C-alpha cells in the first residue's frame, strides 16, 4: 500500500517535472566531475544546487543546455530528450529556457537594446513588438533608461540586471541562474535576489539556481540539493539542511 502510494506520488511528480536528470556522468580525463547526478525540477519551484567551486555545477547546467555532451545519463526537458535532439529542435526548446550567465555574458559590441533584441532575431516580430518586449524586460529589472548604453558603460550590477532582462525577454518557462550573485556587493546581490523573486512571481517560471551563496539560498530556495563528489549528497529545504549534523553539509553553512 505504502509502496503504491509512493509510486503514485513519484509518477505525479515526474509529470510535473520540467527538467529531469538521471545518472549524469561527465569526466575530463582523470577528473571525474559528475558521477551519476540525479535531479528533478518541478514547474514553478525554485531549486538551488549548492556545491564547492569545481564541483561540477556549471558543467551540469552546460549539459542541460546542450552546450556540453555528458559521458552518460539522461536529460529530459519538458519531457523531451535533450541528448538525442537535432540542432533545430534544441534551438526551439532553448526558447523556453532563460539563462543567466555567471559573468553576465553581454555582447560587448552591441548596445543594451541590441543585446535584448538578439534572442528575438528569429521570432518573426515587427520592430514595434520587439521594442515593446525590450522595454517590458527592462522595466522588470528597473533599467529602462539604459536602453541605448553599451555594456562597457554599465556597472557590474547593471550588467547582471540587463543579462537577467535578456534571459526573460521570451517569457521562458524555466530560468537557469549560474551563480547570480557572484562578484556583486551584498546590496546589489540582494537587489538581484529580489528581482529573481519578482520575476518568478510575474511569470510563474521554474528556476534552477546554481550558487554557493548561503544568503541567496536562504531567501530563494524552495528546495536544495548539495552537490558533493559529483552526486547529490543531500536534498531538502534550507531549514532541513542547515539543521543537519553531517559535517560535510554543515561546512556549507559555516
Amino acid at each position, binding site marked *: 500500500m505504502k509502496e503504491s502510494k509512493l509510486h503514485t506520488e513519484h509518477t505525479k511528480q515526474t509529470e510535473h517535472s520540467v527538467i529531469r536528470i538521471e545518472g549524469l556522468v561527465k569526466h575530463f580525463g582523470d577528473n571525474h566531475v559528475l558521477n551519476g547526478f540525479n535531479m528533478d525540477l518541478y514547474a514553478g519551484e525554485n531549486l538551488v544546487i549548492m556545491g564547492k567551486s569545481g564541483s561540477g555545477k556549471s558543467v551540469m547546467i552546460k549539459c542541460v*543546455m546542450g552546450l556540453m555532451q555528458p559521458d552518460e545519463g539522461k536529460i529530459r526537458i519538458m519531457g523531451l530528450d535533450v541528448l538525442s535532439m537535432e540542432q533545430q529542435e534544441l534551438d526551439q526548446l*532553448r526558447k523556453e*529556457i532563460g539563462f543567466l*550567465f555567471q559573468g553576465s*555574458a553581454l555582447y*560587448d559590441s552591441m548596445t543594451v537594446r541590441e543585446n535584448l533584441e*538578439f534572442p528575438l532575431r*528569429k521570432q518573426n516580430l515587427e520592430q514595434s513588438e520587439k521594442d515593446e518586449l525590450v522595454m517590458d524586460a527592462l522595466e522588470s529589472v528597473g533599467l529602462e533608461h539604459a536602453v541605448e548604453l553599451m555594456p562597457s558603460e554599465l556597472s557590474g550590477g547593471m550588467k547582471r540586471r540587463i543579462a537577467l532582462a535578456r534571459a526573460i525577454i521570451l517569457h521562458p518557462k524555466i530560468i537557469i541562474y549560474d551563480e547570480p550573485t557572484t562578484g556583486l556587493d551584498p546590496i546589489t546581490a540582494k537587489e538581484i535576489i529580489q528581482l529573481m523573486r519578482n520575476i518568478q512571481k510575474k511569470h510563474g517560471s521554474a528556476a534552477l539556481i546554481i550558487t554557493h551563496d548561503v544568503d541567496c539560498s536562504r531567501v530563494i530556495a524552495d528546495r536544495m540539493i548539495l552537490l558533493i563528489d559529483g552526486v547529490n549528497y543531500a536534498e531538502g529545504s534550507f531549514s532541513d539542511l542547515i539543521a543537519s549534523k553531517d559535517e560535510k553539509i554543515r561546512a556549507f553553512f559555516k
Partner: protein
Amino acid sequence: MEKRIRIPENVRSFLIEIGDLSYFAGRFFQELFTRPFELKELMRQCYNMGNRSLLLVGVTGFILGLVFTLQSRPTLMEFGAESWMPSMVSISIVREIGPVITALICAGRISSGIGAELGSMRVTEQIDAMEVSGTNPFKYLVVTRILAATLMIPLLIIFGDAIALLGSALVEYLKGDVSFQLYFNSAFDALEYSDINPAIIKSFFFGFAIGLVGSYKGYTCTRGTVGVGEASNSAVVFTSMLLFVIDFIAVFVTDIFTEI
C-alpha cells in the same frame, strides 16, 4: 617486436593543429551554403574589415611605392634604364609585393583582431550565450568573418597596389621629371592579364586564410585572458606563415601554367 616511431611532441601538436584547422575549414564550407544567411552581420564585417583598413593599407602602399622606387632608381640609372622604372615597379607591385605586403598587414590587423574578439567572446561566455539564445554562433560569428575577409582582402590589395603605384609615380615625377600620364601609360602597358589574374586569384586565398586562422584561433580559445592574448598572437604568426605557403603554391602553379 614491432618498433614504434616516436613523433616529437611539437611536431605532433602541429599536425593536430593542422587537422583541427582543416576540420574547421570543412565546417565553414558546410555552414556557408545552409540557411539562415547572416547578411546583416556579413555587411557589418565587410565594413569593419574593408573600410577601417583603408587608411593603413593606403599609407603602407604609398610608402612601399615611394621606397621601392627611390631604392631602385640608382641601380637602373647605372645602366641607363630609368625608363623601365614604371613597368618594373608595376609588375613587381601587382604580381608579388603588393598582395603579399597588404595581406601581411591585414594579417596583423584583421586576423589578430578576429582572434582577440572571438577569443574574448569565448572566455566571457558570449558565444555560449549566443548558442542558448537559439543562434548558431559558428554561422553568425565565423562564417561571416571568413567570408568578409575573403571578399575584402582582394579589394584592399587592389587599393594598396594603386596607391603604391601613385607613390612610385610621385617619386618619378619629382626626381625624374616623368609626368603622371607618361608614368601610368608605361606602367599599364607593361601589365598583362597573366600578371593580374594570378595575383587576384591568390588574393582571395590570402583573404580566406586571414579569416580562417583568426576565427579558428579565437573560436577555439581556452585558458581565460592569457588564452585571448595567445589566440591573437598565434593568429598573426600562423596566418603570416600560411600566406607565404599560399604564395609559394600560387607562384608554382602560375609558373606551370605559364610554361604550358
